[in-house]
């Protein structure tokens, strides 16, 4: 009995060790990959058409999802805020509450999560399929580095698109809050906007959201292209890589968000 439990503990320790080693290996490989992306970025920046195309694919084609999500998140914020704040007679502040919540937290975080589901999966599966159908090997054989030609433009496209999408998300959210609060619930419009104008600071609140979304853009785009580029070149491998990209991006965004919030609030 004692032997069995000792053996079980031993196996558990071994499995934890293997998992930890696997995690550290992947993490290290990810850092090296990110370094390669950064080193090769000047090549892609010298050919802006490649990047513009990717900004269109990852950004413009995600607009409908982002705008709709932003609109409804803003409306829910206003509704919830109204129900709570009206108990204290402070329903006029829902504009400010919604704007602060959106620009500081919800805008960048929800945009990054939606990006992972919409553009991140597209990036992973596209690059994975290129791997599976020998397109990347074909490029290598044509003496063209697929990192420079395929991966870096997609990475930079995502990094550029993310903050733009986050700003649009927040703007749509504020519009949704106005729609719900002012038009449907009858909050005073002047108070709605003036409270927001008085309390939301461009430098602290809006910029902190934009800074966050830049970090999220780097993380989400890097993880998407990393998983696609390193996938097993089979249908199952591409599927697994796509799933991993979404899961890893979502977790990374939430962890990064906490760290960035602590940093931007000055460690308070």
């Amino acid at each position, binding site marked *: 009995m004692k032997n069995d439990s000792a053996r079980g503990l031993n196996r558990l320790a071994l499995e934890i060790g293997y998992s930890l080693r696997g995690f550290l290996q992947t993490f290290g490989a990810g850092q090296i990959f990110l370094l390669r992306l950064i080193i090769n970025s000047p090549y892609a920046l010298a050919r802006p058409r490649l990047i513009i195309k990717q900004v269109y694919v990852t950004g413009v084609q995600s607009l409908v999802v982002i705008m709709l999500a932003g609109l409804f998140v803003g409306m829910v914020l206003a509704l919830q805020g109204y129900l709570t704040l009206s108990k204290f007679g402070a329903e006029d502040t829902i504009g400010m509450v919604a704007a602060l919540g959106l620009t500081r937290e919800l805008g960048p975080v929800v945009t990054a999560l939606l990006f992972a589901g919409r553009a991140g999966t597209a990036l992973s599966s596209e690059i994975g*399929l*290129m791997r599976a*159908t*020998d*397109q990347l*090997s*074909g*490029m*290598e*054989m*044509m*003496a*063209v*580095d697929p990192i420079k*030609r395929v991966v870096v433009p997609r990475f930079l496209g995502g990094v550029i698109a993310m903050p733009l999408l986050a700003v649009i998300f927040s703007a749509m959210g504020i519009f949704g809050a106005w729609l719900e609060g002012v038009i449907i619930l009858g909050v005073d419009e002047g108070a709605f906007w003036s409270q927001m104008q008085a309390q939301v600071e461009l430098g602290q609140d809006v910029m902190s959201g934009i800074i966050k979304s830049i970090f999220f853009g780097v993380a989400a785009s890097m993880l998407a292209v990393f998983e696609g580029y390193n996938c097993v070149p089979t249908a199952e491998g591409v599927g697994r890589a796509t799933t991993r990209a979404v899961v890893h991006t979502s977790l990374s965004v939430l962890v990064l968000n906490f760290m960035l919030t602590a940093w931007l609030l000055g460690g308070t």
Partner: protein
Amino acid sequence: MAPAGSDPSSRKSPAGCGGDDNIIVIRNLSYSLGQTTIFNHLDIDIRRGGVTAIMGPSGTGKTTLLRLVTGQELPDQGSILFDGGEITKMSRRELFRMRKRVGMLFQNGALLTDLNVYENVAFPLREHTKLPERLIRHIVLTKLHAVGLRGAWQLMPSQLSGGMARRVALARAIVMDPEIIYYDEPFVGLDPISMGVVVRLIRRMNDALGLTSVVVTHDVEEVSSIADCTFLLSAGRVVASGTPEDLQDHHSATVMQFMTGMADGPVPFHYPAPDYGAQLLDRGGK
């Protein structure tokens, strides 16, 4: 097999396809994937200007050999010389310089699916040259005309049949005027007409453009009609080499099995398995 020498090119040439002007010299090449030995002290010479066929049953490592000679994989041991340069010791930059001198036709064409036929063929030119658009257009249309697909320039890869995709890939492979082209299973999945077209194209391109062609295939009949020299691989080694006629007359059981398409022989039909009857009666096992 000859022992590994300090100068790979000084080792004795494999029998069958003589000649001193070899663009590729493979000596003592060994390569394993995990526990599986793919090549075991392999020696092959590819003669400049000819069509060389590398044949063998599925799973003998024919495509792996192409990956090795193009520097996509590194061998465990041995030497691969391309025009005198040691591929196994080349840096990435040197490999890319070497690859600008070669073309490769992948089994599935490997066309870039977001570009149309014209842009696929123009791709290497746009990446490696600063030619004016008018000249690029001229070159692309010339190459597409050579493979009979000038009229399909605006089609997307998804609109092409398997044979057409392979011909477009061939046009792309020759657009930089390479010295050597590698064909990876160029006849797989083609209808008889497309196959005949591709077979003739390989020979015609080779002679008209002064190329060297290496065709990796297991289609004996098709490749025999165009190859100058043939190597038959089995169990990680060259089991026979020579002209297609030499192989047809070969008395080795392995060669005869492959050339005549017999199901069983030195290359077994069945994957190693326990006794059939015992496995059927074993209720517990799968």
